[in-house]
Each structure stands twice: as structure tokens, then as C-alpha cells.
């Protein structure tokens, strides 16, 4: 049972055990407090405009706790200044989500930081895109919107502004460093540059096309997001996917984890001045992408998952090709891990750099890979395994040092475990259908899809509208929780170590900015 839930609980259609409760303002905070004291975590937070239905705005908080997922909803009258109590006291990561909710919906949490987060002056201050009366196609001239960064004062302190355009093939965001000499005293992030109105865009789409947009929330997590979307829709409509489709989805998800971890392991070697690492991992990643092309007909699986199953089947010779590939990867990985572990220069850069202690990680709501590198071993594939992971007994990697070396080690552990899962999936692949028909869901249903992507748990909350339309869809990326942690991991480190630390987190800008 959810901590703090007593009565009035309903189950929610989801691929995970999920319950839901409506609460008043007092209970909104009390439940947060109970979840926190029972060791639960904040999963996602969003708002909706339901004034057309019952004159109310609503906020939804989703928690992960020991027995599943809990959706808590709180409604407020849509008067001139709708407000709700902040969850920041119990879950600090709620702060940025609450600022985003204000930018998009105009409902305020009762807390002191009201600087814009996703709105940079691209639309008027009194226009709120996620309100029902706001037209998605409205275009506004951008106005300048100065952002008051927190100033650090003292002898010899100076600021280094970085971004939004960075020196490399990476996504845009702004970092404001306050430094003394080479040491970082404070880092403040400003994100939102990639906001492209994804949530509003969902509302213009049919239920059966939403998976395509979901796959493009964060391109490196296309499978995780499109699976979460499909899981939400399939749960809401009571659709059961064919077994083969479920196995192929898991195979695609593990390939996505492999591709990203291989890329990161190479880039981390490179940021530590070890180009050999970059070259070899880049080669392995390319080999994997070419295997994807041969097996799934695409290098990146943007459109592989569809509601009800998958879009294409494996060619007949794919199992043999895949097993060969996994075998050669495993040998390469063990050798590369050995090389990294025994390279004094690399270890000198990796160890004790960018430490995120277990205590800080816990207090600031770390999730996913970053939490696992700081001694918080949670993974949805093991905590609440949905098919086919219920048969896989996924071994969760856990490291405790919380530094760059730990985040490298988690990636090594996870690629090896992924290869084991892939081999098992291929060996047990059953013949059969790869998709089934999904009916339109009736209006007013809420479905929750939650999938452990390579970064951590992603969530898609889908509320259905009439005639197969989407009324509201909120996707949530683990980067929301993990971005603020970099501000802590960098403290006391040297400015030139920032690229290495940032890469070891490798968070999504696009998935966060929506």
C-alpha cells in the first residue's frame, strides 16, 4: 500500500502496479511527507487545465514506492490566481517542475523561486500554452527576458558563462560558473532552450500517432519513450501485446541501452585524454548500429514500436547475426574494461572527480543510472518487472563511490548485463504475431507507462479524449531529477573537469525542455 494512502484509492491502468488518489491541499503535502519518510521517490509532476470540464485546474504527482507507483491528484478552482502547496520541502527536484508548470499553465506553487524556467520570452508572460483556450499555432515575436542568476560575491570570485551554444556536437543549455582560480564555487544551470511545445503538440494528435512524437522527445531514448507511450495506451485500452512483440521491444530497449552506454564509455575515455577509448567504443557503437540496420531495418529505432506491437519482424538470419555480435562485444568489453581499469592516467581523472555522495543523491531525488552509481540501486526492470522482464531476473548494478569512476563502472556492468538479457531474449524468441489491433480508448481515461530507459525511468501519462484523440499527455525524463545534481557534483572541482563530469551524467536537454 502507498505510504499515506488510506482510503479512496483506485487502480490505474499501467504496465506497473499503480494506484491513484484525489486529495485536498493538506493531504497533498502529507502524502509527500509519508512517501519521503518511507524511502519513496518523486517520479513526475505535471498539471492540467480542466476548466472546460469542471472549472478546475489539477496537479498530479507520481511517486515510486516499495509496492509500485502512486498517482496523487489535487484540484484547485480556476479563479484568477490558482495556487497549490509546493512539494519542494520533501522533494527538492519538484522545484523546477513546479516552475515549468507555471510557465505552461499559469498555476503557482506556494514557494519563493518564481523565475521562468521553460519560458524565455518566446511567448507573452500572460499566455499559458497548456491552457485549453491557447492555440498551439500561435506565433509570437520573441522578447528579451533577462534571467537573474544567483550572484556569488567575495575576493577573487568571477563568473564564467557557458552556452547555450557549446563547443561540440552537443545540445544547448546555459551553465553559469562562479569560480575562484580554477575551483568551482557554484554552478547554476539554465535550461529550456529546446522547448518545442511537445505536450501541446500531443493534444493535436490521435492516440494512434502519439508514439511517433513520443519517440522524438529525446532521440537517444526513442525506444524507452515510445514503449512508455504504447504501454500507457495499451493499459488504458486493455490491450495485450503478442509475446513475440514484447520480446522484440525488450531487445530494442536493450540495444538502445548498449548503443548509448558504448558511446558514453568512449566519450568519457576521450574527455580523460584517452583517444584510444573513444576510437574503440565508437567502432563498437557503429557495429551495433549496423547490426540494428540489418535486424530492425533502422540504425536508430525511432519508429520500431507501434501501439499493439512492433512495426517489423527480424529477418530469418538475424538471430545468428545477433548472437555472433554479442559474443564479439563481450570479449571486446572485458578487454576494454581491463584497459580502462589499469590505465593510471584515465583512473587519475575518473576517481574522486565529481563525487555525488549517497546522502546527497538520496536527499536530492537522484534516479536511474546516476542513483545506481551513488549507492541507490533502483531499476524498474528489477523492482517492478513488466513482461518480458518478469522472466529475466535483471541484476541491478550498484556502485557506491559516486564519482566519475562509479558512473563508468555502472555503464560497464550494465552493458554486460544487457548482453546477457539480449542473448536470453534471442534464444527464447518465439514465433508468432508481432502486433495486435488497439481499439480507440474512450474519453477520460488515464494510462501510465513507465519504462527503465538507459538513463533511468521514463514515464508517459496519457489522458484520453473523445474519438481517439489525446486530451493530455505528459512525458517525464529522469533528467529532471538528475540535472540539479550536477550543480552539487561539480562543487570544489576544477572548471576543466566539468566536461568529464557532465559527460558522466550525460543528461537529456531535449527530454527535459520538452
Amino acid at each position, binding site marked *: 500500500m502507498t505510504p499515506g494512502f488510506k482510503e479512496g484509492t483506485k487502480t490505474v491502468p499501467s504496465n506497473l502496479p499503480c494506484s491513484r488518489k484525489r486529495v485536498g491541499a493538506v493531504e497533498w503535502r502529507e502524502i509527500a511527507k509519508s512517501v519521503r519518510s518511507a524511502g519513496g521517490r518523486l517520479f513526475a509532476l505535471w498539471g492540467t487545465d480542466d476548466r472546460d470540464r469542471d472549472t478546475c485546474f489539477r496537479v498530479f504527482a507520481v511517486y515510486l514506492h516499495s509496492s509500485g507507483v502512486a498517482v496523487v491528484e489535487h484540484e484547485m478552482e480556476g479563479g484568477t490566481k490558482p495556487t497549490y502547496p509546493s512539494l519542494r520541502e520533501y522533494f527538492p527536484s519538484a522545484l523546477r517542475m513546479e516552475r515549468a508548470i507555471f510557465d505552461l499553465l499559469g498555476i503557482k506553487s506556494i514557494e519563493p523561486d518564481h523565475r521562468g524556467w521553460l519560458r524565455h520570452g518566446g511567448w507573452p508572460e500572460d499566455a499559458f500554452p497548456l491552457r485549453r483556450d*491557447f492555440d*498551439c499555432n500561435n506565433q509570437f515575436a*520573441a522578447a528579451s527576458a533577462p534571467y537573474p542568476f544567483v550572484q556569488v560575491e567575495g575576493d577573487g570570485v568571477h563568473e564564467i558563462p557557458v552556452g547555450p551554444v557549446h563547443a561540440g556536437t*552537443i545540445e544547448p543549455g546555459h551553465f553559469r560558473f562562479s569560480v575562484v582560480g580554477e575551483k568551482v564555487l557554484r554552478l547554476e544551470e539554465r535550461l529550456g532552450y*529546446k522547448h518545442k511545445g511537445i505536450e501541446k503538440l500531443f493534444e493535436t494528435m490521435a492516440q494512434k500517432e502519439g508514439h511517433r512524437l513520443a519517440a*522524438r522527445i529525446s532521440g537517444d531514448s526513442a525506444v524507452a519513450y515510445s514503449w512508455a507511450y504504447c504501454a500507457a495506451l495499451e493499459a488504458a485500452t486493455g490491450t495485450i501485446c503478442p509475446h513475440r512483440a514484447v520480446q522484440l521491444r525488450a531487445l530494442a530497449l536493450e540495444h538502445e541501452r548498449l548503443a548509448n552506454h558504448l558511446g558514453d564509455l568512449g566519450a568519457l575515455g576521450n574527455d580523460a585524454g584517452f583517444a584510444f577509448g573513444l576510437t574503440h567504443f565508437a567502432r563498437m557503437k557503429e557495429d551495433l*548500429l549496423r547490426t540494428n540496420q540489418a535486424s530492425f531495418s533502422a*540504425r536508430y529505432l525511432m519508429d520500431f514500436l507501434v501501439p499493439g506491437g512492433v512495426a517489423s519482424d527480424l529477418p530469418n538470419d538475424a538471430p545468428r547475426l545477433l548472437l555472433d555480435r554479442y559474443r564479439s562485444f563481450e570479449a571486446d568489453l572485458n578487454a576494454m574494461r581491463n584497459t580502462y581499469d589499469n590505465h593510471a592516467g584515465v583512473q587519475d581523472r575518473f576517481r574522486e572527480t565529481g563525487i555525488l555522495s549517497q546522502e546527497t543523491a538520496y536527499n536530492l531525488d537522484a534516479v536511474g543510472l546516476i542513483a545506481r552509481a551513488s549507492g541507490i540501486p533502483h531499476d524498474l526492470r528489477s523492482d517492478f518487472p513488466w513482461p518480458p522482464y518478469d522472466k529475466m531476473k535483471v541484476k541491478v548494478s550498484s556502485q557506491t563511490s559516486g564519482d566519475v569512476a562509479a558512473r563508468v563502472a555502472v555503464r560497464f556492468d550494465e552493458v554486460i548485463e544487457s548482453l546477457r538479457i539480449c542473448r536470453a531474449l534471442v534464444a527464447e524468441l518465439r514465433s508468432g504475431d508481432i502486433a495486435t489491433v488497439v481499439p480507440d480508448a474512450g474519453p477520460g481515461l488515464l494510462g501510465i507507462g513507465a519504462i527503465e530507459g538507459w538513463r533511468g525511468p521514463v514515464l508517459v501519462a496519457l489522458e484520453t479524449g473523445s474519438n481517439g484523440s489525446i486530451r493530455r499527455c505528459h512525458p517525464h525524463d529522469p533528467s529532471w531529477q538528475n540535472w540539479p545534481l550536477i550543480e552539487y557534483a561539480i562543487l570544489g572541482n576544477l572548471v576543466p573537469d566539468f566536461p568529464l563530469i557532465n559527460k558522466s551524467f550525460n543528461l537529456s536537454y531535449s527530454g527535459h525542455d520538452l
Partner: protein
Amino acid sequence: MINTLSRMIRTGILTEEVPRAPKADLPIGNLQEKVRKILGRALCIRHLDAGSCNGCELEIQALNNPYYNIEGIGIKFVASPRHADLLLVTGPVSVNMEEALKRTFDAVPDPKLVVAVGDCGACGGIFGKSYASRGAVADVIPVDHTVKGCPPSPLAILQAILETIQTTA
């Protein structure tokens, strides 16, 4: 050290032959000479993400892997727009990146080339135009060439780059 060296030797050189620009049957050697004649040095590319989903970035990064090895044919990515000849732009242009894109474009010295990458960069893609997105790159800055795909393969991006140099040079 010995392990690293032995791995290098065992792996060998993986770099593949560069695709020819599709419209002209010009050997790559000539193209390289042409680039050198016009620019007097390698072609320098600055990539700018104007709001993409980060899918195109993954394929652009792949151009540097040993299979494509674009530095081997005299093309390199640079950190500053001031060092660039060609701007490679991804994404639908988000409203919040519009100014940064314009300023980056202005910072590239003339004469300059712009290639818009991916379905979104080429025509707005699934995001199109909205309150938060200006759509295609060409709606914000002048574009010389586009390459479609979601995301386009590294080869497609490389071909577009070669074609842009060839038609302009």
C-alpha cells in the same frame, strides 16, 4: 601499453571508401584538391543544435568514428563558429534558440555555407511551426542545402556536405 598497441594492430584500419557526391562522378581526390584550392586548407564545420530531439547529433558524431573518419578526407569539426566555413544545423528551430542561431550564423565569416540536417531541420519535421517552434532552419537563416531523414545516416550527411561544396565550389 602492450595490450593497447596489440589491440590497435589487431583491429587494423577500418576506414571505408568515401561515397562520391551523387550528382557528379568526381573522385574524392579531386574534391579534396578543389576544397584546398578554394579554402587553402581543410573544410571546417561548426555544428549547431537549434532544438533537435538529439537523434541527428548521434549520427553527426558517428562521422568521426573510424569507419567514416572524415578528418582523413580533410573535413573537421571546430569549436567556434568563427573558425567555420560551413554551419551544420539540426532541429526545428525552437523559439528559445532562434536568437542563438542567428548570432551563430552571423559569427561565421563570409563566404559561408549552411546545411540543415534531418527532417526537422529541412522542413520542421513532426514539430512543424507552433508557439514554441519556428519550423525549418530556412525559415530563420539562409540555407544552401538540406538532408532529410529521421535521423539521416552518417553517409547521407556526408554526401550532403560533399554535394554542397561541389555545387558551390
